[in-house]
């Protein structure tokens, strides 16, 4: 690839000698026999370990992972199917294909084996058999359609910059694991801070050496940095920590306990996600690790590929520098490392979205191939996560409408490159149309509607969102990405209290509240981290540290939005940039921005799905737009300095959003990955005392159904903790502990935050509200029957 700055505006770079953008090429037989022999030996060992249940610490899990994921991905990666694609792109397609094969293969076994007399089709034996069949099939496929693996040559010619980046990335991962363990053990945040610092240094050098470091090694470096960030959050606590992941983990345990997946076990949208039911069950059977670690580690190992796909997608049209910036913006977005480790179903779905977007924009493939892969990726999204599929279909629909506009006569007059069939602008046109959208919508109907009957929540959410638009709530959305509205949480809580008191007065089942003053529930403000030594020194020098942190965070959010808009204008308005792009890429970018706008306009959608998650999904497409926009903004300073300023700003935002800067200075909200305090810690961190309390309670009579009240957090999500897997149904609920809504006969479980600091959290209209909990009310009306210093149970 030769740079033509006249044509690309400096957004593409020169290929360095020896670079292998293709990754692999040609139809060559794989030579030496020993790798094959070693591979089959490892397959035999993996079979032995899984079938005998013999535990080999760490090595057993590594061999299991290699057997079920790594080897199949490698085999598929080294077939000739992905000719004329980069290594990162190949890995994206191969990984998602293997995940889909595992999910669909598990589903087929799930229904095919019971009639043959095997009642537990997802037990170890069948899963190992599936792994063996998959391995044999992929070996045969690779034997029939081989491609020469280019990575071996890449490793042999490793450059010093590349080796340093790989070492830095690996050190970041190791330090992240060690540091998170230390935070869990109350041993301080120093190692975690060094790990974060190490990721920053890695990214700085990656940007500095972007001309010398090849795409493959850039991808590996980005993968390691992503993995370090994800593990710092996912490894918090000894149990599964986080919001959605609690229920995700339960439906996984449901499938694992039954040895089969059945939507009838629990007709819930979560249970319809094969990514968190069938897939982790298969992994657990083969990995031989504690099921908790399947969720805490292996999903992160998979999801860390997503920024690499963003990089590959950016490389479709732009230079490596832009690709790296785009990937950093994607993995530096707060949702990536604070929320995605808690939403495993969406993490898997994002991989399929990334693969689908790569397929759409691959102008080297035929239209039929692109469409086929898009449809297969869409199937993967639907089986992985319903909401991501809704957003994907909406994005494609809007993108199709935008494409129609871009193909109009007026647009063709404005954009002459549309008339050049060989230009990328026209080359990839019409991969998706209304037909593709209809097929994907049918997939939703077939799986979410007909097969699992779980798609109804989407209709409800859409209806309430539209209704909510016209309601005069007087409360600004806390999720607005584009507006800076603030929420009156006191008013929200006051309204809630009035409603709860009306219910209390009308229903004798509740513990009677004689007057509102009996249950004072004032809103509590979560204090920020205290200033550190550095922060105090700055404060002494007159720098308002708390304001500084807030300003940097706010400017990160606002500037990213600005850069996206500027990038879009550059795409559409600057001819030399536009003609490097495919029309569908621009249409998808516009559609993604529209989707984020929709989440801003409809606050209820944000409450149900999360506007930040929508933005994270949009970033898969618009991250390069953001990167180009940032360079364009600084283009006044000339090409070299615009790149430097854009890189400095990107790294600056990364330092702030990952929590490094607030942690060094103090004066900002504590982040779960670095602290044993803060909002997420109070709500979602599961302490051993809480687990002990739930275990104690689970053996008591009358607990379920509807017999437990507990604070928002693991226990409320964990509504099946009090019953055996065979008794789980949709009827189990855990009520909130809001004092006016406590029933006379229920058990009330107080968690660590309430016991230690009298603070409870409630979720109202998409807003988490802290309030002082009136424990006295419980003491006056119920017996305190269990106490362990970190948890209390009243009856």
């Amino acid at each position, binding site marked *: 690839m030769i740079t033509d700055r006249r044509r690309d505006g400096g957004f593409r770079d020169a290929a360095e000698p020896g670079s292998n953008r293709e990754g692999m090429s040609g139809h060559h037989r794989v030579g030496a026999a020993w790798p094959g022999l070693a591979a089959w030996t490892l397959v035999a060992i993996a079979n032995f370990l899984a079938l005998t249940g013999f535990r080999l610490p760490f090595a057993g899990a590594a061999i299991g992972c290699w057997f079920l994921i790594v080897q199949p991905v490698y085999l598929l990666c080294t077939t000739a199917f992905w000719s004329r694609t980069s290594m990162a792109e190949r890995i994206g397609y191969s990984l998602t294909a293997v995940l889909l094969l595992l999910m669909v293969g598990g589903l087929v076994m799930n229904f095919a084996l019971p009639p043959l007399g095997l009642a537990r089709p997802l037990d170890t034996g069948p899963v190992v058999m599936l792994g063996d069949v998959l391995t044999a099939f992929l070996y045969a496929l690779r034997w029939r359609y081989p491609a020469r693996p280019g990575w071996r040559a890449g490793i042999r010619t490793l450059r010093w910059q590349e080796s340093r980046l790989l070492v830095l990335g690996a050190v970041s991962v190791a330090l992240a694991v060690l540091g998170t363990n230390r935070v*869990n053990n109350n041993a301080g945040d120093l190692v975690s801070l060094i790990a974060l610092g190490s990721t920053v240094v890695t990214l700085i050098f990656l940007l500095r050496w972007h001309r010398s470091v090849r795409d493959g090694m850039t991808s590996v470096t980005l993968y390691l940095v992503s993995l370090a960030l994800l593990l710092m959050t996912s490894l918090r606590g000894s149990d599964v920590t986080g919001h959605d992941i609690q229920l995700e983990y339960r439906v996984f345990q449901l499938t694992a306990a039954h040895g089969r997946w059945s939507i009838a076990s629990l007709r819930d949208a979560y249970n319809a996600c094969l990514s968190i039911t069938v897939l982790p069950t298969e992994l657990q059977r083969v990995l031989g690790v504690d099921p908790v670690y399947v969720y805490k580690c292996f999903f992160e190992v998979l999801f860390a590929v997503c920024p690499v796909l963003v990089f590959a997608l950016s490389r479709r049209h732009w230079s490596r520098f832009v690709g790296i910036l785009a990937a950093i913006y994607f993995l530096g977005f707060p949702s990536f490392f604070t929320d995605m480790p808690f939403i495993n179903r969406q993490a898997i779905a994002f991989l399929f979205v990334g693969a689908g977007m790569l397929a759409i924009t691959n102008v080297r493939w035929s239209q039929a191939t692109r469409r086929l892969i898009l449809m297969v990726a869409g199937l993967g999204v639907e089986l992985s996560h319903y909401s991501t599929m809704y957003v994907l279909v909406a994005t494609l629909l809007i993108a199709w409408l935008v494409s129609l506009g871009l193909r109009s006569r007026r647009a063709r007059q404005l954009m002459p490159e549309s008339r050049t069939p060989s230009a990328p602008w026209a080359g990839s046109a019409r991969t998706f149309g209304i037909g593709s959208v209809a097929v994907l919508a049918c997939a939703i109907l077939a799986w979410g509607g007909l097969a699992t009957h779980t798609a109804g929540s989407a209709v409800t959410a859409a209806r309430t969102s539209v209704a909510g638009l016209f309601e005069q709530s007087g409360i600004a959305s806390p999720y607005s990405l584009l507006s800076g509205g603030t929420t009156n949480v006191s008013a929200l809580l006051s309204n809630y209290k009035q409603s709860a008191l009306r219910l209390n007065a009308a229903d004798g089942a509740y513990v009677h509240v004689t007057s509102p003053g009996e249950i004072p529930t004032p809103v509590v403000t979560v204090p920020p981290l205290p200033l550190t030594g550095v922060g105090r020194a700055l404060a002494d020098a007159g720098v308002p540290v708390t304001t500084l942190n807030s300003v940097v965070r706010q400017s990160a959010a606002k500037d990213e939005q600005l850069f996206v808009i500027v990038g879009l204008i550059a795409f559409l308005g600057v001819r030399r940039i536009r003609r490097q792009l495919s029309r569908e890429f621009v249409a998808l970018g516009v559609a993604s921005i529209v989707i984020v706008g929709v989440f801003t306009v409809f606050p209820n959608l944000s409450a149900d799905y999360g506007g930040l998650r929508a933005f994270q999904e949009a970033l898969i497409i618009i991250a390069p737009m953001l990167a180009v926009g940032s360079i364009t903004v600084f283009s006044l300073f000339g090409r070299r300095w615009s790149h430097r300023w854009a890189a400095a700003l990107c790294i600056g935002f990364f330092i702030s959003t990952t929590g490094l800067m607030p942690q060094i200075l103090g004066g900002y909200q504590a982040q779960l990955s670095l602290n044993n305090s803060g909002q997420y810690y109070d709500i979602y961190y599961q302490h051993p*005392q809480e687990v002990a309390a739930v275990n104690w309670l689970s053996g008591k009579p009358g607990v379920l159904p509807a017999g437990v009240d507990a604070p928002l957090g693991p226990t409320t999500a964990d509504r099946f903790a009090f019953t055996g897997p065979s008794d789980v149904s949709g009827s189990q609920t855990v009520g909130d502990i809001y004092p006016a809504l406590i029933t006379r006969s229920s058990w009330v479980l107080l968690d660590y935050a309430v016991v230690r600091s009298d603070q409870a959290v409630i979720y109202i209209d998409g807003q988490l509200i802290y309030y002082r909990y009136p424990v006295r009310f419980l003491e006056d009306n119920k017996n305190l029957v269990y106490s362990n*210093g970190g948890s209390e149970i009243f009856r």
Partner: protein
Amino acid sequence: VLLPLTVAAIVASALFPAGRREWALSLGEQPTRYTALSFNTSWALPDIDAFGAPIPISFEISNQEGRPTRYQYVLSETDGIVTRRLGAAARLVASGGKWTVSTIVRPTCPGPVCHIEVHLPGHPETIEFVVNLYAAPPRS
């Protein structure tokens, strides 16, 4: 050069107790120490009873402190004004062990609402139940 130095530093740090402790904090999960105190038949505790009538209760002390611990329990009653000790005992409980206490209390609080409380001096854990007392019918 860096790799051998790193390996040497790791090996050297493992030779000292402080270094080993830091590695343990970095590599493994350290157990959380706590004591659990609970009523055994918590769902069947009476909420109303006659003054001075016997109430059988059973509670359990669970030692999760990671070492053998000597526990003392104190059983008392109070109406919010007057507190009276109903019983006490002490025992050494092995690490991970439990001590189950079964006894009978006869609440004689002066007021109608009587709190029967179990607490462990030296530990923050407390459990209690409330019983509303009524006068026992006179013997015929």
